[in-house]
């Protein structure tokens, strides 16, 4: 911009520095000031040689400036190259390490719900609270006063705890999220919240024997929690996210689908309301007869889904550590018992199916029968009578049953027992299941006493669940379904995403045979030993059972018995099988018909409205 002085048209004019300077001093124009300086400078070196020198020096100065700038630019470029290319990856890594956080998002175990979507088990975060008194910025007393009401602890004791150690005091374990929120909102220094997840069972002990519990290591230890671990566990992936200076998470580097975890729940076939009703009925009878233990199983024979599975006593899944370890085992699938008379309808079905007997056959019942070297008696009636098959069931005649089975070849009978699944597992989805016990074929065939005792449900053992399964075959027209509690994985809209594949039901009886047996069982309730389970307006099929309790050392425990009752409702269109089993009820009048039948009645009374079973026409 500045015009050079050399433009001056008159080189001869002697330039005097000072006047020209004063002359322009007043000018405020910046441009002009610059020019003035220029003119001063050049003015002093007026004359051609000097001008050349000045131009040369100017050029060199320009060159220097250019050089400096270029050098600086080059330097910057080199540094850029170094930072971006040579050390690029290393620096990126370092920055990443500083900015990224390892995030383990809350990946809860899937909740467990019942068939009506009531939550049976759900994950919730809990906190372990540590105190570090050396970091407190208030006095111990003040802090104790503040915390005491929230933690439900005595303030004085808290102060003592604070004084005991300088740091790392475990103050509370399993602090719920909302309580932790309140504590955090105080903004107190010196407290540490360590988050972990704990399983919560809102129903406490109601479904504990089905759902089970999860231990501290978040592994299922019993029930569905154990057997369906694969369905319940979500894959916990640690996500690395970058974090901004203020701690906010940033989406870059977030893995694909990081936010889209499924909302699946494990649905059980259990009906909470029925379960509750069954428990009330069961408790009542257990208390009344001071029984050792008792259980109720309700199964929909159409598909084998279990609507209720209650056992008493049970444990609170939220406080499993306080419970008796023996209770963790669901004895309806893990313990064997001799079913006794409740097995009789199945023997009748086998005989009918084989054509060994006709539905209207009659038998002589003298009260006792001699088989091999033993004498078999009836439990109650011992007088002579002539009875038909329905009456055998009604009066639970052992003698009659022995006669029915004696019409079959023992080998064929044994085949049928095997076909029923005796001695095998049910393959249910509840864990720790044991298979029933049936004597070996040689042993069974060696003596005629074996088929005779088996005919009234002794000499072999099975689980209560297996008995329900077999009665299910009577209720659903002859198919052996698999009892199960897992419906499948459903999403929040109730759509089923996965359902376990169950073995296809085996047809073991014809539907006519099954219906005939159910009809006979109906007379047991209407006229026989099962009168206690009568419900007005409904026809119910059932069979009582009072079995001696087998001793682990062989033989039977004197005085100890297992009373049971199996009911099928509605008898005209059989669908639901209800089994009540009470172990070692005390008292003279403790029989299947007096102890277990009322339980089944109470359960059915709730089942009927719940399942909308219409009354008899």
């Amino acid at each position: 911009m500045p015009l050079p002085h050399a433009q001056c048209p008159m080189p001869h004019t002697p330039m005097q520095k000072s006047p020209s300077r004063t002359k322009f001093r007043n000018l405020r124009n910046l441009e002009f000031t610059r020019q003035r300086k220029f003119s001063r400078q050049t003015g002093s070196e007026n004359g051609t040689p000097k001008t050349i020198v000045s131009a040369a020096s100017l050029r060199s100065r320009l060159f220097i400036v250019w050089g400096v700038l270029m050098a600086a630019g080059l330097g910057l470029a080199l540094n850029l190259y170094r930072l971006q290319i040579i050390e690029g990856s290393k620096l990126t890594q370092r920055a990443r390490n500083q900015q990224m956080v390892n995030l383990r998002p809350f990946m809860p175990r899937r909740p467990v719900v019942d068939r009506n979507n009531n939550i049976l088990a759900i994950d919730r975060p809990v906190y372990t609270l540590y105190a570090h008194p050396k970091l407190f910025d208030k006095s111990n007393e003040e802090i104790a006063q503040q915390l005491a009401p929230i933690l439900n602890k005595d303030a004085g004791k808290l102060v003592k705890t604070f004084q005991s150690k300088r740091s790392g005091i475990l103050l509370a374990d399993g602090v719920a999220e909302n309580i932790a929120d309140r504590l955090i909102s105080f903004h107190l220094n010196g407290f540490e919240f360590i988050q972990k997840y704990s399983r919560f069972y809102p129903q406490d002990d109601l479904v504990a024997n089905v759902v089970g519990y999860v231990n501290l290591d978040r592994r299922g230890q019993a029930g569905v929690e154990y057997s369906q671990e694969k369905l319940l566990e979500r894959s916990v992936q640690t996500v690395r996210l970058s974090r901004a200076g203020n701690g906010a998470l940033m989406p870059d580097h977030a893995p694909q689908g990081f936010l889209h975890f499924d909302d699946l729940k494990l649905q059980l076939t259990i009906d909470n309301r029925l379960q509750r009703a069954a428990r009330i009925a069961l408790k009542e009878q257990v208390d009344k007869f001071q029984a050792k233990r008792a259980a109720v199983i309700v199964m929909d024979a159409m598909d084998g889904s279990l609507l209720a599975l209650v056992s008493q006593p049970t444990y609170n899944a939220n406080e499993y550590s306080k419970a008796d370890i023996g209770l963790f085992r669901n004895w309806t699938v893990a313990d064997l018992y001799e079913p006794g008379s409740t097995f009789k309808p199945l023997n009748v079905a086998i005989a009918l199916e084989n054509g060994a007997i006709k539905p209207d056959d009659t038998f002589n019942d003298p009260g006792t029968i001699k088989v091999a070297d033993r004498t078999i008696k009836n439990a109650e009636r011992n007088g002579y009578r002539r009875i038909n098959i329905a009456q055998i069931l009604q009066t639970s005649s052992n003698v009659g049953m022995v006669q029915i089975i004696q019409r079959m070849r023992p080998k064929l009978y044994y085949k049928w027992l095997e076909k029923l699944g005796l001695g095998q597992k049910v393959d249910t989805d509840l864990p720790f299941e044991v298979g029933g016990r049936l004597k070996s074929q040689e042993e069974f065939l060696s003596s005629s006493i074996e088929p005779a005792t088996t005919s009234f449900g002794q000499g072999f053992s099975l689980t209560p669940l297996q008995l329900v399964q077999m009665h299910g075959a009577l209720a659903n027209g002859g198919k052996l379904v698999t009892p199960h509690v897992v419906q499948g994985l459903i999403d929040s809209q109730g759509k089923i995403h996965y359902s376990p594949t169950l073995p296809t039901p085996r047809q073991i009886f014809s539907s006519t045979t099954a219906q005939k047996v159910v009809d006979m069982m109906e007379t047991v309730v209407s006229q026989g030993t099962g009168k206690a389970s009568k419900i007005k307006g409904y026809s119910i099929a059932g069979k009582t059972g009072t079995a001696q309790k087998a001793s682990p050392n062989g033989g039977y425990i004197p005085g100890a018995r297992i009373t049971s009752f199996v009911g099928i409702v509605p008898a005209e269109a059989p669908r639901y099988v209800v089994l009540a089993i009470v172990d070692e009820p005390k008292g003279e009048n403790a029989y299947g018909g007096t102890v277990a039948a009322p339980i089944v009645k109470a359960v059915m009374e709730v089942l009927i409205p719940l399942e909308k079973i219409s009354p008899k026409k």
Partner: protein
Amino acid sequence: MKQPERQYLRFTKIMAVARKLAVSTKSSWFRRDYTLPSDHRRSESLGKRMQSSSTLASESTAVRSRRKRNPSRNLSFSPRKEAVTQNLVKDSGKQAVANIPEKSSGRLPMMSTAGAAGAAPVWLLRLYTVYRYSSAAAFLFVSTTLVVYGWTVYSQELWSQAYRTLQSLQRNERQLNTTNATLTSKMAEEGEQPAAGLVSPNPGETIFLPPTSHNPNSASSNTIPSSEAQPQAPTPLGY
């Protein structure tokens, strides 16, 4: 003492020419140049005060200063001497005073007037146009870059806000579910107490309506419990 006088005389003469020029010329830049009078005055007063030398050189500087003010508005820098000389020659009417020898002007880069558009070389004008458009483009690019960059930062902020909202919603859902389940279970437990006065559903207290007769399935469907448990005064079925 004579020399200064002569010089002063020459100076006033030149000033007169300059004044005449200022009056006569129709050139817009001269007229618009409001500093001219003050410059003039100053140089005049200076001339009076001057003891030894008030050279034409200084005068020419003054004139140049005037000219320069105009370039500050619409001049471009030209390092080439040819351009300047050409310019000066063409502008001879106005440049009566500044009749600069080529020799002296060629040394250094200098500013030139561009009073008339046609006077500037085509390439310079092109360059100028390119400069204008490219600076506009550069401005646009820079602002776009800033906007895009700002958006990337802001969108992350938005995401992290939304993520926080999501987390708090999930947390609320969890707490709601848990509380709901706990309350339901508590209520059911309380209902179990005989004092609560609640009873279990009972078939004796349930009204079952037979299926409507025109339902083709109803005749054969006693296996399917199609009738429903209904409370008192249900709306009649069948239409």
